[in-house]
C-alpha cells in the first residue's frame, strides 16, 4: 500500500483517528509520518548524535593541526570516532578533551557531572570527600522535597562513610 500523503513510498504507519464520531485510518510512509511528528525512528535520540557527529567533523577539520588525534591507549583517531560515534576507552576523554568539551555542551547543555560520585573499593581521601559532598547535596535536596525515606537512607550512607566503612554491600 502506498502512502496516501505523498503517493510515492510504501505506507509503514497506519494511524486510526476519530472525528465527529467517524473513524478513519490513514496510511503514511515513514517520511510523511515523521514530518507530521508521528514516527519514532528519526525523531529518537539518533538525531542529536547525528548533529554531534557532524559537529565532530568540523572539529576534526579545525583541530587536526593542533592535536595528535590518536589515543595512545586504544588507538582511536578522531576520524574513527566520526565514523562510529563511539569512544574507545577512558583515556579518549582526556586525549580528545578539547573537541569533546564543546560537543558535550551541545549534547547535554554542559560538561560538569553533578550526579552520583563514584566511590571505589579503596577510596583515597579525595574520593571520600567528593562522595560525601555529593551525598550531603542529595540529603539537602531530599529534605527540601520532603522525601524523608530517601533522606534517611542518605543520612545512613553519610554516617557509614564518615565512620570509614564501605558504602554498601
Amino acid at each position, binding site marked *: 500500500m502506498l502512502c496516501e500523503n505523498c503517493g510515492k513510498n510504501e505506507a509503514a504507519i497506519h494511524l486510526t483517528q476519530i472525528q465527529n464520531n467517524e473513524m478513519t485510518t490513514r496510511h503514511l510512509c515513514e517520511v510523511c509520518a515523521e514530518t507530521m511528528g508521528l514516527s519514532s525512528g528519526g525523531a529518537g535520540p539518533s538525531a542529536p548524535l547525528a548533529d554531534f557527529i557532524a559537529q565532530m567533523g568540523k572539529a576534526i577539520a579545525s583541530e587536526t593541526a593542533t592535536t595528535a588525534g590518536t589515543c595512545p591507549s586504544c*588507538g582511536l583517531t578522531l576520524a574513527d570516532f566520526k565514523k562510529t560515534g563511539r569512544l574507545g576507552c577512558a583515556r579518549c576523554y582526556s586525549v580528545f578533551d578539547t573537541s569533546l568539551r564543546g560537543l558535550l555542551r551541545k549534547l*547535554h547543555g*554542559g560538561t*560538569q557531572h553533578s550526579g552520583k560520585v563514584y566511590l571505589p573499593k579503596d577510596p583515597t581521601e579525595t574520593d571520600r570527600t567528593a562522595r560525601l559532598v555529593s551525598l550531603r547535596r542529595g540529603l539537602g535536596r531530599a529534605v527540601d*522535597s520532603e522525601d524523608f525515606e530517601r533522606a534517611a537512607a542518605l543520612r545512613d550512607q553519610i554516617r557509614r562513610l564518615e565512620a570509614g566503612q564501605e558504602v554498601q554491600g
Partner: protein
Amino acid sequence: MKERFLDGDPDAGLAWLRADGPNSDIVLSTRIRLARNLRNFRFGTRADADDRGEVLRLTLAAADAAPSLQSGRNVTVSTLDDTERQLLLERHLVSRELIGGEGHVAPTHTALVLAPGEGLSVMVNEEDHLRLQNIVGGFRLRDAWRDVERLDDEMGQRVPYAFHPEFGYLTSCPTNVGTGLRASVLMHLPGLVLTQEIAKVLQGISQVGLTFRGLYGEGSDVVGNFFQISNQTTLGKTEEDLIDHLQRIVQQVVQYETQARSVLLRDAPTVIEDKVWRAYGLLRHARSTSFEEVMNLLSGVRLGVGLKLIENVRVQTLNRIMIFAQSAHLERAARGRLPEGDLDVRRAAFVRGVLAAEESGAANA
C-alpha cells in the same frame, strides 16, 4: 548459580507483567539502566577478545559476590542458540547489540546476569562493559532507581569503574556520559492517538529534553500505540533530577491520556465500543495472526479494559499475551523452529486459548 536460562523459571525477568504497579493500564513498565565501564579496559567497539574475556571474568566474580544478585542466574549469551537469544530480546532483558543482529554471529564473551527478584539485571560486554538494568511494573521510577542504585554501589565496590571528576561515569557513546542513566517508561496511549493529540504531546516531550521510541528501543517502530518515553541528556543533572523531571512529564501524559479517553467515550461511544469489541472478537476467534496484528488488536482490547467496557479480561493477561505471543516464545513452547505460516497459526491458537481460559475463569469467579 550457573544454569541455562531456559531450564529455570519460565517467567524469569517478567515480574512486571503482574500489572500491580500504579497506573498499570496506561504505564506498562518502568525501566532504568546505568551504563558503566571498567577502568583500564578498552570500551565495547575497541575491546579485543582478551579485554572482553577479562571484563566478563571480573564482572561475573563481582556479580557472584553482590548481595542484590545472590541466587540469581548467569546466562552466557554467546552459547545460546538463536531462539534463546531472541527470547531474551523479546523479554526486553537484552539489547539487539548484545545478542548480535539477525544472521550475525553473536559477539563473544557476552552475558546476562539476572537477579531472582523483580527485573534487576546486568548485561556484560554490550556497547559498554556493564549495563545495569531494572524493569518494574507500572509507573514506579523511584522504586526502579533505588534498587539499581544499590546494585551499582555493590558492583562498583568490586570492579573499578571508569569515572572522571568532571565528566562523571565514562561511556562508549558520549550521549550516555555523566550519570550513564536512561530512565524510560513504556506507555499505552490509544486515547491520544485516536483524538489526534499524540503529535502535539510527542512534540512537547522533545521540547522538554525527553525522547520517545517504539517498543523495542532505538530505531523501532511504534506498534499498538505503545510509546517508550525517556530522558535524552545524561550529563549535568543529578540522577534524582532526571528521574523527577521524567516523573512529572509522564504524570502529565497519563492525565492527558485519561482525559482523551473520557472525550472519546463521551463523543464517540459507538465507534469506541465497536473498535474495542472488534479487536476482542478478532483476537478471540482469528485462526492466523502476525505479531504486529496481535499488538494492534491488544491495544484495542487494553483500551476496552481501561474504559471498563470489557470486564472479564485482566491487564496482566494482556501483558502476558504481549510477551508470550512473540515468535521465540511460541517456538520455545513448541520446542523447535517453526515456519512463518505455522507461527501465525500457533500464535492465533495461543491467544484464543489464553482468552478462552480468562473467560471461563471469569465465569467461574
